[in-house]
Every structure is written in structure tokens, then in C-alpha cells.
């Protein structure tokens, strides 16, 4: 009964994001745990408490991601592992997924991998699908509730949000799931957990430890630079009129003329 929860430190969601003259993204120095991951971490801890499972928290990236890992330890994860190798610098989502999948396989006995819904810094969830594919496990995305989990019988039943409503899906374990906001109320770190986390040295697994060669770190896509979105321009026009009805009529006329209505 081993659960792996995958996390990442991302720029603060309140940070002002800009692009410098060299095409480099600026998002401030402050990093936070991916807010979506907070739900995944809490759900993993709730499952740990209910099933006496072991929880490993894992991140791919340089040292700055230790913050998210320590946050997970402080909430109650049993161990943290950071995957990083200079060759992974500038990785695309597929390289990321290969690294995560290799780490899961190295852990050996993981039967449930949990992700937050997406990475807000790049607004993508491709890495979740790619990780499931690399592992060859079922993917249950956008989970709003874990209805049943039976490690012994190797089954999981979840409620997931789909465009038309919700659907209930069952799958065999091992599986990969991504969870939504609202699946739980994210836990805070405990003070005892904080102390444990602050004293923990987080091991770093490089490519060779994962059994990957340099070719595995070669992405198919590379970000060459960023550009600012064009500035949105707009003008405000105050509609005058003798009465509210008069103003509303003029507004409707304008909206028709502009083909808004």
C-alpha cells in the first residue's frame, strides 16, 4: 500500500508575470506549492490514514522544488524524493513524464499515483496523461471523489467530473489519478511535521539512478523564448439619456450595431 503524490513548486498565483527583453519569463522570487497539488497531497494523507498506506512525495526539478516536498512532509508524507539531473534542464512534458514514471518504477511497490489537476504555471496537464502512458497504467482524470479503494483487491472507484456532469468509474490498480479542487479541504502542515520536514535531507535521484540515459532527457519540444501578450486596449463610453430606460435603449442599439447581440 504505497501511494506516490507528485508535486511542483510554482510561482505564486498572485505574482505579476512579465517577460524581459531577452524573452525570459519573470514571475517573482516567491514559489508556492502548486495549489492543485495541495488537494492531491491532502487526499494522499487521508488515504494513508484510512488504509495505513505509505505516501511518497516526488518532484522533478532543481533545488527550489524542495519547498513543495518539505510542505508535503510537514503535512504527513512519509518520504520525499527529488528527481533532477542537469540533462533534464529545459525538459518538455514527455521528458518530465519519463522521469516520473522511472522514479515510480524505482520505488517498486507504488500502486496509486496522484497528481493535482494541472500545472498552473504552464496551464497544462499533458504530463499526467504521459506519465500514465509511460507506466502503462489506467488514468482517472479530474477526480472529485474517491468512492472506494481496496488495495488488497487492487481496485479503485472514483467519481469524476465530465462536461455533462459526473461519472463513476472503476479501475484496477495500479492507476494514475488527478484530483480536483473540492475533493477535500487542504490540510495545513502540523508543527511536528514541520520539525520532521526541516530535519529531513531529501535524496536526489539523477538519470543514472533512474536507469535512464541522456537520450531519454531529449525532449521533442523546447521553449525558445516567451513574449508578452499584446496589451488589451479598450475605451469607456458613458451613455447619456433622460432616463434609465432611455439609456438602456441606447445601449441595446449600440450592442446591436457592434454585433455583440
Amino acid at each position: 500500500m504505497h501511494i506516490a503524490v507528485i508535486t511542483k513548486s510554482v510561482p505564486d498565483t498572485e505574482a505579476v508575470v512579465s517577460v524581459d527583453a531577452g524573452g525570459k519569463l519573470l514571475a517573482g522570487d516567491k514559489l508556492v506549492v502548486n495549489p492543485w497539488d495541495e488537494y492531491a497531497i491532502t487526499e494522499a494523507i487521508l488515504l494513508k490514514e484510512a488504509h495505513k498506506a505509505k505516501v511518497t512525495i516526488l518532484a522533478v526539478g532543481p533545488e527550489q522544488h524542495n519547498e513543495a516536498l518539505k510542505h508535503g512532509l510537514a503535512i504527513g508524507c512519509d518520504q520525499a524524493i527529488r528527481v533532477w539531473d542537469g540533462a533534464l534542464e529545459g525538459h518538455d512534458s514527455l521528458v518530465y513524464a519519463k522521469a516520473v514514471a522511472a522514479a515510480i518504477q524505482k520505488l517498486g511497490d507504488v500502486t496509486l499515483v496522484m497528481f493535482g489537476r494541472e500545472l498552473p504555471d504552464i496551464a497544462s496537464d499533458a504530463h499526467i496523461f504521459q506519465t500514465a502512458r509511460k507506466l502503462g497504467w489506467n488514468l482517472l482524470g479530474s477526480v472529485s471523489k474517491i468512492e472506494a479503494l481496496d488495495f488488497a483487491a487492487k481496485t479503485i472507484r472514483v467519481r469524476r467530473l465530465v462536461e455533462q456532469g459526473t461519472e463513476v468509474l472503476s479501475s484496477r490498480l495500479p492507476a494514475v489519478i488527478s484530483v480536483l479542487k473540492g475533493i477535500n479541504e487542504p490540510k495545513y502542515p502540523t508543527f511536528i511535521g514541520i520539525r520532521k520536514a526541516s530535519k529531513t535531507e531529501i535524496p536526489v535521484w539523477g538519470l543514472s539512478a533512474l536507469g535512464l540515459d541522456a537520450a531519454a532527457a531529449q525532449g521533442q519540444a523546447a521553449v525558445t523564448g516567451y513574449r508578452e501578450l499584446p496589451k488589451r486596449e479598450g475605451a469607456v463610453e458613458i451613455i447619456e439619456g433622460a432616463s434609465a430606460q432611455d439609456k438602456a435603449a441606447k445601449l441595446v442599439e449600440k450592442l446591436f450595431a457592434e454585433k455583440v447581440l
Partner: protein
Amino acid sequence: MDFMLNEEQLMAQEMVRKFAQEEIAPTIKEWDQKHQPHPHVLPRMAELGILGINIPVKYGGQGFDYITLGLVCEELERVDASLRVVMSVHAGLNSLALLQWGTEEQKQRFLVPQAKGEKYAGYALTEADAGSDPANLRSTARREGDVYILNGEKMWISLATKADHMLIIAKTDPHAKPVHKGISAFIITSDMKGVTAGDIHGKLGVRAGSTGWIAMQDVEVPVENRLGEEGEGFNIAMSCLDNGRFTVAAGATGCIRACLEDSVKYSKERHTFGVPIAQHQLIKQKIAFMQQWYDAARLLVFKAGWLKNLGKRNTRETAVAKWFATDMSVKAALEAVQLYGAYGFSDEYDVERYLRNAKGATIYEGASEIQQLIQADYALGYRKDKPIRCEPVAYDADAWQSEA
């Protein structure tokens, strides 16, 4: 000299910040306007372990140091003074007194449930006619066999109607010379016969805080509830203030930070004369002063916390931190209101609440004038720290984090 906070302190600070900002900040204004404590505050602070943050683990606490206590208070008052007041009385004035002066049996009976947040605690020194002059308090404790009979009324007591345990300072010898030698300290519980309490309404600030009175009429208090020796109560009361004032000072830095952060944000949003007001020099001056007051207040708080960690007497250093930080929090709040203009004068924004809250802290736990007298008396050599039977308890990470 190392000004860096360690990882443990930073993570604790972040955790309390999250709690205060996410759970309390969104609705604190409503509770302040209703003149009622936010119902979530006490139980959640208990549940999260905040109430026992710097009590050793073996006494039910979390085993963090005094600097962390300061950081916690700063984060709490960044949102509202009423949150920090809980720490001042429960942790600073009461629990730390039990740690310093309590017998092992008293620690097990009172400190452990307080540190775990199972019981709330308060401190009652002030009376209607005894605030800055506590040696002349009128409450009495008359010994009769194995009990003391307590009579009197305490005023301006935080958590008066919420606390389960109350540290009472009363006279055991009304004729003692000097008068402070006739004072003793007792732990009473709210369920004792003859104890009544009520809330005080109409306060200028800390309106979401619980402040009240406690009346004692022939309350029988077992001898084993006396904290320290008979006649030691004044020393105990003053040592409590060394810890309480530390939390007030740390909280006031949080209030200054609130003024600074809100003013920075608003001054970039509000335009006059075609530019954000942040670009006007006189606005920059206000921001600069707030930054200066915050930095200086925080350094004074850290210095006092560092002395506490070492177990050294810190009355003067804590008093100067409390005096400076609280006086500057009032100035910062006044400047913030001015910067916000008419909006600052309305309760649409938070800065008017910061101002009302800040004013109280220049009065309670030793008015600014008392803190000034303390500084002058130390400087003039009129006041020196005399040895006390139980010196402040130094922070020892291994011992405080050990289960046994």
C-alpha cells in the same frame, strides 16, 4: 551575528500565515463590526497546535522557540489584534508562567491541557483602580487551613468569559511593607463556586476580542493551586509581563506590516493628478517611515526573543520592544488612514480597524509611559534585575522537542 530564520521557523510562520489569511481574514471585519469574537479563532488555534507553540513537547506543546512565538504573533496581528491577544494571555501571560514557576504537579494539571488546547487560559492582574500601579490591587486571598478564600474583582481581562483557567494575582498580606511582598498568585478555574465573569462592551478597538471582568466572592482555592511561594506573586506577575509584552510587541510589528502592505498596494492602485499616488513624494515618505518602523520594531522583538531563548532576563529589552512597536503601530496606522484619504476614514477598508486596534496596545500590559519609566530607571541605575527563585526558562531544542 545571524539574522536568518531557520527552516523550522519559516515553515511555522507560513503555516500560521495561511491559517490567519485564509480562515480569519475574509470575515474578521464582520466580527469586529458585531463586537463579537470570531467563533472559529480559539478552537482552530487549539486544533492546529498554535496555543502551545513554544511549550515543550513533554508538556503537550509543540516545542518551538521564543522567536517562533514572536513570528506567530506577528502573523496573527497582521490579520487582527484579537487573534494575537489570545496568544498574549493564553501562552505569554499564563502558560509560560506555569512553565517558569509551576510545580511538576501544576504543570501536569494545568499546563498540559493548555498547551494541547484542551483548556483556555487567562491572566488577571488589572483591577478597576489598579492598572499601572498593580502593587495596590485590592483582591485578597485569605488562608484558611488548606484553602485560600479569594475575593475581589478583576477588570479588562482578555478571555474573561472564555478561559477555563485564570491566573489571579491577589493580596495574601494586605499589611506587608513594601506592599508587593504581600502579593501571591493563584490558578482558579471557571467552574469554582463564587467565580463569575462577564464581557465588557464599547471598546474602541480589538472588538473581535473577548475582554471582560471576573468577580470572585469567597472562592475556595486549594493551597496546591497557589503558583510559587506566598508573597512571590508580584515577581510572578512581572515575569508574566516579560512574556506577555513580548507577544504584544511582536503583534504590533504585524500591525505595522499590515499598514505597510496595505498602503503599498493601495498607493499603486489609487491615482491622483494622473499618476498612482505611490509616485508622490509625500506618499513615499509615509511608506518609508512604515518600513523603518517595521524593521526597527522587528529587530527589537528578535533581540528580546534571542535573550529569552538563552534564558536571560529580558525585562528592559522586552519593554523597549513593546514601547517602540506599539507606539509605532499607532503612527503607522495613522499614516495608513491618511494615505487612504476618505476611504481610510471609512470601515470599507481595514486601515481604520488597524488604528483602533493599535491604540489599545499602547495601554494594556504596561502603558507606553510605564515602558518609558522602565527604560529610564535602568539607564539611571535606579532599577536592576534582582535574582528570582525561578529564572526564565531557556529554550533547549533537544529537551523541548523530547517526549519525555
